[in-house]
């Protein structure tokens, strides 16, 4: 299914924007909160646990899973909008 050049540019730019945004969150949560800012965040308590520690050992993992889900959902939407919904390839 051919897509016009206009669609392609917009689609790819949308992809790149999504990727960069999600990677920014990935970096901030994993490295910013879990490593560089962990001591500062430990001043806050999450149910009795130092928050920075919890982010590094649990919270960041939850966020990573969420990020991939957001990527899959928004990409699906972008695919449909661009008319790039896939037909199943044979077997």
């Amino acid at each position, binding site marked *: *299914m051919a*897509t016009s050049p206009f669609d*392609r540019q917009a*689609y*790819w730019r949308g*992809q790149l924007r999504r*990727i960069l945004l*999600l*990677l920014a969150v*990935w970096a901030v949560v*994993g*490295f910013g909160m*879990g*490593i*560089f800012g*962990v*001591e500062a965040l*430990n001043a806050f308590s*999450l*149910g*009795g*646990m*130092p928050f*920075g*520690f919890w982010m*590094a*050992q*649990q919270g*960041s*993992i*939850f966020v*990573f*899973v969420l*990020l*991939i*889900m957001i*990527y*899959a959902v928004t*990409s*699906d939407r972008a*695919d449909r909008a661009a008319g*790039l*919904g*896939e*037909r*199943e*390839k044979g*077997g």
Partner: protein
Amino acid sequence: MGIQGWTWITVGVTFAAYLYIGYRSRVTSTRGFYVAGQGVPAIANGAATAADWMSAASFISMAGLISFMGYDGSIYLMGWTGGYVLLALLLAPFLRKFGKFTVPDFVAERYYSKTARVVAAIAAIFVSFTYVAGQMGGVGVAFSRFLGVEFEIGVLIGMVIVAFFAVLGGMKGITYTQVAQYCVLIFAYTIPAIAIAFVLTGNPVPQLAIADILPKLDGLQRDLGLDPYSSPFANMDMLNVFCVTLCLMVGTAGLPHVIVRFYTVKSVRDARWSAFWALFFIAILYTTAPAVAMFAKYYILNQYNELGAGIEGVSWVKNWAATGLVTFPEGGPATVQDLLGGINRDIIVLATPEIAGLSSFVVALVAAGGLAAALSTASGLLLVISSALAHDIYGSIINPKASDRKRLLVGRWMIIVAVLLAGLLGIFPLGFVAEVVAFAFGLAAASFFPIIVLGIFWKRANKYGAISGMSLGLAFTFVMIVLMRAQSVLGLEEPIIESFFGINAQGIGVVGMLLNFAVTIGVSLATTPPPVEVQEMVERIRYPA
């Protein structure tokens, strides 16, 4: 029935299931053999990826490592999960659209070069071989510890099982047995975790129960003269925590046996979703592990606090002392250092069922789970080795005119060759093999990750850039690791250098990766752009249809 009796049952039943699935998944074409006919549903692929990813080390040793490292253990928790975000966003969908069989396939076509294919194939073989030897060794250890079977026989049994479903079914057999292995290992891991959470706090959800235990654990460690469990950078400085975490993440996204998993799904959309499912399934274990680490550490320290040296008379200690995993000095541990020094870290997972008062059946389940983890990872790695030899070197370079039947036959033989060599390396480990497993991530981060990402996102990247970048990144990282770990690799007394600007051997892959990026970009810009067909190929893989 004792642990051994139950273990024969759990292992027997699970192994029979793997053989059956392998038989039912047998294939008759190279497309079936290398990419499971591109017909694996996203959820199944996610479960298979999760099992492929979680090796015996993840299953048995990781909780123990975290338990003894406290906050610093986050390098493994974040390092071995964060990479999946990179895979999902930067690699999986595009490689699926590319749609061939192996990682060197992509490298060869994107960089229009047989040399690049060979370099990539050799790197893939090297990284995968050292990794798989560790798994086969793990199988041998599990057999000897749980079933009293001799180590070598255990390795042999593992080899036969893997060879059976891998030779018959190739990637298809491997994928579906991995789904079964995921079910076994996650069941085996979470049951003891839920039990010990309940026993210690009354809350059966490990991820919630930690809120109760952590403050007590911190206090206990302080009372015993140790740094609190949650204190950051107690044993590893911030620079290294950062570098090692990043290295593991990027390495994850550069490991061939993980990347090829995304060739097997039905569509680009499924590739993205399967990455989600993979991390979801992995996260179940990875968020449980730090909980298990805390519970077990708390329990052990608390018991020591109450009994002192008398802890050596406690039943779980006596049981595991008999296997040599717990070794206290005469008269019991006099100090907390004696206590912690005398406990093999694997105890944390292995002894948890007993500590939680669970029956021998659960311990047997843990044994089957550990074996599931080892075999699932081993099979994925063996396929990469076989495909590098049969598809990349033989099928693409030595005999490109070979028929599909011939290629399939060579592929099957290469699995057998790889299994034999892996088994041998597992039984007669070369001292440096264990080191390289840990550093496989650094090598993958410095060789594959940069050129694949640049290949997808930057049309200007050309073959001279990629070959130089890959070679230099690999060489730099390899040399650094050898210099910094000269004791195990070269048998010297001391490392030749301590660190590279403060970065240790586990994190040096980050520098190798940066070097690769820099060289690939620099050399590409200084030499002729890639041919138009290649640029069009890059354009094509960016769209799902």
